[in-house]
């Protein structure tokens, strides 16, 4: 808990690297999510007929159905991808940084 340890962590170049990498990754994914979601909302608000196209000629199912479900499950996959990267890449560096600071 001591400030010394925090100071040592902060001065470790690996910390800066971890923070930059992870932040870039997280912010990138967040922007992707925001663009998709608000893009979808704006299409709903301004051009709902775009989503009213039938999936094939004569079908009652419109493209809105797979797009909507696709948004949910694509977001879920992104969450999974974030966790995969965090477990594989970030946790190890994180543990190293803390270990080095405790020495």
């Amino acid at each position, binding site marked *: 808990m001591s400030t010394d*340890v925090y100071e040592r*962590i902060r001065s470790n170049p690996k910390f800066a690297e971890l923070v930059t990498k992870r932040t870039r990754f997280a912010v990138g*994914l967040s922007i992707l999510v925001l663009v998709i979601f608000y893009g979808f909302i704006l*299409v709903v608000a301004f051009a709902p007929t775009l989503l009213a196209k039938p999936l094939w000629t004569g079908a009652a199912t419109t493209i*809105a159905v797979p797009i*909507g479900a696709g948004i*949910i499950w694509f977001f*879920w996959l992104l969450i999974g991808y974030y966790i995969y990267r965090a*477990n594989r890449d970030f946790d190890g560096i*994180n543990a190293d940084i803390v270990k080095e600071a405790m020495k």
Partner: protein
Amino acid sequence: MRGSLRSGVSVLALAAWTSCTLAAPAAGEIQEQPLNVHAIVMFLIFVAATLGITYWAAKRTRTASDYYAAGGAITGTQNGLAIAGDYMSAATLLGITGLVYSKGYDGFIYGIAFFACWPIIMFLMAERLRNLGRFTFADITSYRLDQRKVRTMAAIGSLAVVVFYLIAQMVGAGQLIKLLFGLPYWLAVVVVGVMMVIYVTYGGMLATSWVQIIKACLLLGGGTIVLGLAMSQFGFNFETLAAKAVSVHKDGLKIMAPGNMLADPINAVGLGLGVMFGTAGLPHILMRFFTVPNARQARKSVFVATFCIGFFFCVVSLMGLSAIVIVGQNPAYFEGGNIAGTMIGGTNMPALHLAHAVGGNLLLGFLAAVAFATILAVVSGLALAGASALSHDIYANAIKLGKVSEGAEVRVSKMSSLGLGVLAVLLGILFENLNVAFTVGLAFGIAASCNFPVLFLSMYWKGLTTRGAVAGGLVGLISAVAIVVFSQAVWVTVLGNAKPLFPYEQPAIFSMPLAFFVCWLVSKLDTSAQAAKERAAFEDQYVRAQTGFGAAGAVSR
């Protein structure tokens, strides 16, 4: 099996379980049988099981950390189910099904909006919450700011969200139970209040978590069974279902695409913002991140929770679509047998009618019991969050400045949950005949405009000072409340005025940016020595947020 016999039986059965409602037609001719035995038996089993768990949890709840955060010993998977349990309320089950039933695709858009907050919470908040928090989210906002002022501010925000959300849940519970179980409204509200207080005071976070986990499993299982039986009528083919739904629904093909519900862009984006950032500011959801041992388990929680939530939104949307065909064409579910008229029990009923149509009284009873259990679980989570704000933030830290024994703090929390239980019951009874639909929007609006901006900036912006946080939080709270009060939902629907003073329903699009702006402006203008100290303290907080070093309970497991 589903021949003419079914419709004959279902008319009788339906008459039996709805005869308690005032609106039931020709009630005099039908033998009064107001109690739904299946539902009550199944609900009692749920109550017995959860009370057993509460007893077990009470024996394991000794310290403040046990009480508020289940000792940080909930696993990622368990917590994921519990988060899903907190998030999938009866309103989602009944409301989204009802919305898809009447509006089609528009209802599904709500589901998508309620889902879209989760990736953002995952990428930007979950790990930091776990690394910085202990019992309440105010632990994070007050980490380097003035304990007294910022905690009080956060507690007010939490309590406002909790109370408005509780009102919606209590009134919904009372009406639902009156309809489903044949119990009087006041009794239903009292039962919910008493159960909630028992779970929270005796079992703390451990019991509350398990109530959520069981309820999440029941809800997912129940929904899946109902949907499976319904889809079997369409050969498990979505296009067959969609074609039939389109052919019988009064709006025809329009139900398969966005309609007019979200045609106003300000309201559409406002809804998106309110739901997305409101969820990220709901105290009972945030609190769940403190129950897992480390950031890795926090991530896993979100993965499991979002799977359940995404699956559930797809299930309820499909249930709504199936109900268009299965329920909407069956006169037994309409007052006077007129399928163009009013549905028995109102617009929230398609899910339950569907359960009855595909699985008879047994499945109806099961789903009704699940809906009741769902309400109990959600109010328990809310009550624990509210009680924690009162005891941990207001009493222990703002009043006693942290100089208080754990025992005393937990005692205050238990008394607070009792107080909240009494308040919830009273408000539930008081608002019985009020249209309380606005309270959920208000709760999300306050969460997005008061809790979220302060929480987010405290984690991400070095420049935030006490003055900025308090000013921004208050402005967000007041503006969100004002917008909702002056909008259609309260000014016209509740207060009976002719025209709303404010044309938009969704507060977050205005009040959230305003709160952020005030936080920023006041912090920038704050040149006090205190502010300089607070900015300097960000560095250590930042390291802890990033690495988890020094996080509460992080070393033990």
